[in-house]
């Protein structure tokens, strides 16, 4: 009985922490419509800041808590809302998800830069660990305090949302921003306040958690999965639901820890990690019992940019060229470069798997590496001989698993698929990849394929095989995209509700795409022929894949290939830099490894400024250069200057190459935007243009200053790093500018439905409206003179 009570109290106190965290998540989601995947990372940052203030600087507990929870965290949340989130309001689900996931990855990277992992940072418990005796059980004061805080938070939020003007305004923001504005509210300020409040709540939970567990950036950040499993109980919108979910999860985890013997097994699966898998299990159960989401007729927002689909001929030529070029390069490369490129090509298969799912269908998955893992493990188990038949079997299994995982979430809206896949990744890590019986000693060797007498047992053969598979799958996807099914996916992305009213079963269509995507990722694992550590299948490993794929412009096969290669380069680049030269970036005095660890995050965040990915825009920018004489002049002058500097020996050949690539990829396409006197709707205000120009200049200078020739020994690595630098520069520059080259070409027609809301009612609008109502212009004139200009607000009847 004592044991039961002990675990009940422990469970309730974690429930309190979950509830506080979840209420922060619910508050930001309901008031801004953005689901904050970085919520756990907010809490993590707060916990580390608390450690810094309290332990490292010795500020006493109470002032330290007040500083972190009531000052720093809210300001941080408000700034994030202002700087990042406001830009993605109204963007698609995919963009919203990728931006907050990127924020989470970036914060994780930043935290690891500021507070390196190799130091242990104990946070002293509150009340010096004192406890009281309750029903014969010792209960630490800190746990009781957590419960009290949760109750206070619950009561406080209830009061806020039902009794205060501010709270009611917060609720109104999500209901309708333009309405609130019209009624004199200030949606911008209200949203900042609610993000501040959310961050404050995240901070409370982070600090409480860190006093109970060790301070670990990853653990605290991934706490968000527990949090949203809890919040889903209230459909992410109800606080009482979230509190109920918290109690269920807290108690369940506590009882599992207390009563289930970690040695217990079900088949080959040991239950030692069950507590860690519980949030995922709970999430799936809750999703299953949710009723199907109702559709929404939004009106299609703004004309989307038609993505040009390459013709099949182009795709075939591209595929053949890819294989030939990679084979030729591979045969010339040193052994170490070959390993690098082969791995990169392998990852390109994984980014390719996101092309149909994200690029075509507009859905998102955060578990692609998990499917790679399932493919790899299944292949190791069933295909030891390397038989291609085993690959077929493995791929089929991945497709089925994918369909089963996605089905419950796909009945609901886009955000739930992201939640479910993230939870699935955690579940598989706990219950599958971290099982000794499944992956022994933490790594799995995928058997190399063999086709009869031909065994793919060298890196070169593996590279060629991967290139061939990529080319075939890429061609298959182009064919699909051009087929009726591909058109249907595009249609579904543009307007799900219209598809449904034409008789399309949205759920089964989406499940089909998801299964295809899982199958391609699984194939990537099964055919990799390499050794994976269990870590590489985890959620943190999947996130950069999705982020980079989206950033690269996910609609295109080529974009997927480049994304994969870059991703393959990053970890290896960081080991090379770590070994070689820390001082390269001396002028920013950050270790390069760490810089690289959060670049994908930064790239993803900059997506908030323009959601379609980088690749297509650069192409458009180039076409615009031709029309802009100043841009032409500056481009030519810059190129000549670089060339002259190289000729006279001021800069090395490698620096020249690097600077030229940065110039060509990032600077030239953006010049028209920086230099054009007036932009459509004048979005790029002068300060932005200056900032962008400065950034581009810095990037070019960095490319020149990095001692490419001496710091790096391998040519392949040099080339890849130069490309990474260029892509990053372009990405961030576009983000800073806040306008995309495409907008030069295509002034957006304003939505007719928001006349009078997002812009003043013009005379032309009024006349058009009159026509819609079947009046002539003369009648309109008469009416105007009688009723004043308030025509839009007047009901039709009054005008007749």
């Amino acid at each position, binding site marked *: 009985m004592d044991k039961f009570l002990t675990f009940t109290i422990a469970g309730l106190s974690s429930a309190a922490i979950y509830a506080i965290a979840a209420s922060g998540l619910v508050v930001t989601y309901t008031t801004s419509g953005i689901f904050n995947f970085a919520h756990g990372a907010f809490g993590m940052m707060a916990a580390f800041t608390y450690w810094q203030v309290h332990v490292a600087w010795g500020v006493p507990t109470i002032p330290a808590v007040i500083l972190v929870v009531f000052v720093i965290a809210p300001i941080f949340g408000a700034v994030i809302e202002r700087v990042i989130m406001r830009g993605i309001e109204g963007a698609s689900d995919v963009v919203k998800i990728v931006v907050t996931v990127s924020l989470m990855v970036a914060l994780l990277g930043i935290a690891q830069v500021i507070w390196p992992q190799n130091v242990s940072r104990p946070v002293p418990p509150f009340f010096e660990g004192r406890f009281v005796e309750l029903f014969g059980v010792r209960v630490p004061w800190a746990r009781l305090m957590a419960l009290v805080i949760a109750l206070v938070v619950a009561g406080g939020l209830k009061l806020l949302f039902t009794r205060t003007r501010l709270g009611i305004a917060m609720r109104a923001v999500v209901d309708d921003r333009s309405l609130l504005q019209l009624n004199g509210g200030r949606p911008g300020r209200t949203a900042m306040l609610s993000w501040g409040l959310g961050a404050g709540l995240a901070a409370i939970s982070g600090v409480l958690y860190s006093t109970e567990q060790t301070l670990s950036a990853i653990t605290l950040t991934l706490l968000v999965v527990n949090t949203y499993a809890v919040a889903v109980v209230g459909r992410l919108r109800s606080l009482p*639901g979230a509190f109920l979910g918290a109690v269920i999860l807290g108690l369940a985890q506590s009882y599992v820890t207390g009563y289930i013997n970690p040695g217990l097994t079900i088949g080959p699966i040991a239950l030692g990690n069950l507590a860690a898998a519980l949030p995922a299990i709970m999430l799936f159960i809750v999703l299953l019992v949710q009723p199907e989401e109702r*559709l929404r007729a939004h009106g299609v927002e703004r004309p989307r940019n038609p993505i040009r689909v390459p013709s099949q001929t182009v795709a075939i030529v591209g595929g053949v060229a890819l294989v030939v070029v990679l084979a030729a390069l591979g045969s010339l490369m040193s052994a170490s470069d070959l390993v690098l490129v082969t791995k990169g090509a392998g990852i390109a298969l994984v980014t390719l798997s996101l092309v149909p799912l994200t690029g075509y269908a507009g859905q998102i998955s955060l578990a692609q590496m998990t499917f790679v893992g399932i493919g790899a493990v299944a292949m190791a188990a069933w295909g030891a001989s390397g038989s291609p038949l085993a690959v077929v079997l493995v791929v089929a299994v991945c497709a089925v698993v994918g369909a089963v995982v996605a089905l419950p979430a796909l009945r609901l809206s886009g955000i739930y698929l992201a939640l479910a896949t993230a939870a699935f990744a955690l579940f598989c890590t706990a219950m599958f990849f971290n099982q000794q019986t499944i992956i022994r000693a933490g790594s799995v060797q995928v058997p190399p394929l063999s086709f009869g007498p031909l065994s793919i047992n060298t890196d070169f053969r593996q590279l060629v095989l991967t290139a061939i598979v990529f080319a075939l799958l890429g061609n298959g996807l182009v064919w699909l995209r051009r087929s009726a099914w591909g058109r249907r996916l595009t249609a579904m992305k543009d307007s799900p509700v219209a598809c*449904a009213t034409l008789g399309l079963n949205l759920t089964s269509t989406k499940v089909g795409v998801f299964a295809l995507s899982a199958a391609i990722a699984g194939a990537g694992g099964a055919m990799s022929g390499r050794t994976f550590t269990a870590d590489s299948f985890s959620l943190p490993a999947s996130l950069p894949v999705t982020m980079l794929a989206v950033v690269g412009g996910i609609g295109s096969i080529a974009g997927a290939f480049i994304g994969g290669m870059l991703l393959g380069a990053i970890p290896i680049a960081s080991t090379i830099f770590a070994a070689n030269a820390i001082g390269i970036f001396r002028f920013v005095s950050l270790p390069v490894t760490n810089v690289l660890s959060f670049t994908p995050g930064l790239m993803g965040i900059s997506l908030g400024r323009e959601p379609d990915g980088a690749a297509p825009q650069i192409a458009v920018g180039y076409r615009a250069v031709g029309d802009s004489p100043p841009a032409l002049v500056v481009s030519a002058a810059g190129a000549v200057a670089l060339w002259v500097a190289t000729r006279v020996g001021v800069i090395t050949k490698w620096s020249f190459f690097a600077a030229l690539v940065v110039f060509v990829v990032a600077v030239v396409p953006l010049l028209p935007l920086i230099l054009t006197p007036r932009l459509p709707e004048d979005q790029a205000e002068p300060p932005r243009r200056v900032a962008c120009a400065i950034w581009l200049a810095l990037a070019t200078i960095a490319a020149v200053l990095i001692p490419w020739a001496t710091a790096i020994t391998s040519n392949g690595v040099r080339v890849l790093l130069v490309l990474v630098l260029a892509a990053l520069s372009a990405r961030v520059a576009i983000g800073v500018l806040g306008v995309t080259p495409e907008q030069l070409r295509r002034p957006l027609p304003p939505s007719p439905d928001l006349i009078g809301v997002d812009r003043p009612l013009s005379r032309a609008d009024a006349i058009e409206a009159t*026509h819609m109502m079947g009046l002539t212009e003369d009648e309109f004139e008469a009416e105007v003179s009688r009723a004043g200009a308030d025509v839009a607000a007047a009901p039709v*009847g009054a005008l007749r």
Partner: protein
Amino acid sequence: MSASFPTAAASPVAAAAPALRVRDLSVRFGGHLAVSSVDLDVPAGRISGLIGPNGAGKTTTFNAICGVITPTSGQVELGGDDVSKLSTHQRARRGIGRTFQRLEVFSSLSVRDNVRVGLEIRQSWSRRRAAAPQFLAGGAELSADDEVALIIDRLGLVEVAEVPVGSLPTGQARKVELGRALAARPSVLLLDEPASGLDEQESVEFGALLGTLAASGLAILLVEHDIALVMRVCSELSVLNFGQLIAHGTPEQVQSNAAVLDAYLGGGGNDATAVERAAVDAGVNVSDTSWSGPGAPS
């Protein structure tokens, strides 16, 4: 166009029972009853009108009929079968087609592809080939490409056939929606303000087109603020005000109905401003009490 058109439908039932029958339909948004006990009969081969001031509940009625929202109560019957329990796509497969007041075009696809997707989606679910509609080539079976081309031609969209719909003006985009709906070969067609964005001349042509469609056996329910058009093409009208049916009859009867005149001229419309309509069309719940966020019980 006042008399009934010859019905081309094969089934004799269709002539007797209305193609679409709505009974006691109510939709509540929180404390606000947007549609209240509405009954509608939409016979095949005719154009029925549903009119009313802004915010009367017309779009909401459409949404409930095709399953985009779940009504609080009421039944929707299609060709005599109760479809109230079916999901949106199942109802579409039973023959409900519609257009949207706020455009729901596939903006990144061309006009031709928009129509083609409608046809291809139909082909993906219809095992047996639904008979080709009468208004296209007199009901003769066409190849998919020909059918798409013919629809585009009938709607006068030939010049813009390859243009992405996102860059078309509203009036043409509405026609694209109509063409797309027709490609799915519905038996009942719900049109939500299809003529807004058309000029006088176009609106007359559009009325004629609707007449042809109805003559080929389609049951059409038309929501339209262009009263002239409504009076011209509809054989009967239902009038909604504050969610309630206040009148029903031929255009002439309705025109002289005191309640209708009052609704249109007297009260100055309902509470709907342009903003509110935008909110409503976005599916946003603007009524306070139904809000189920923080503080409200879930």
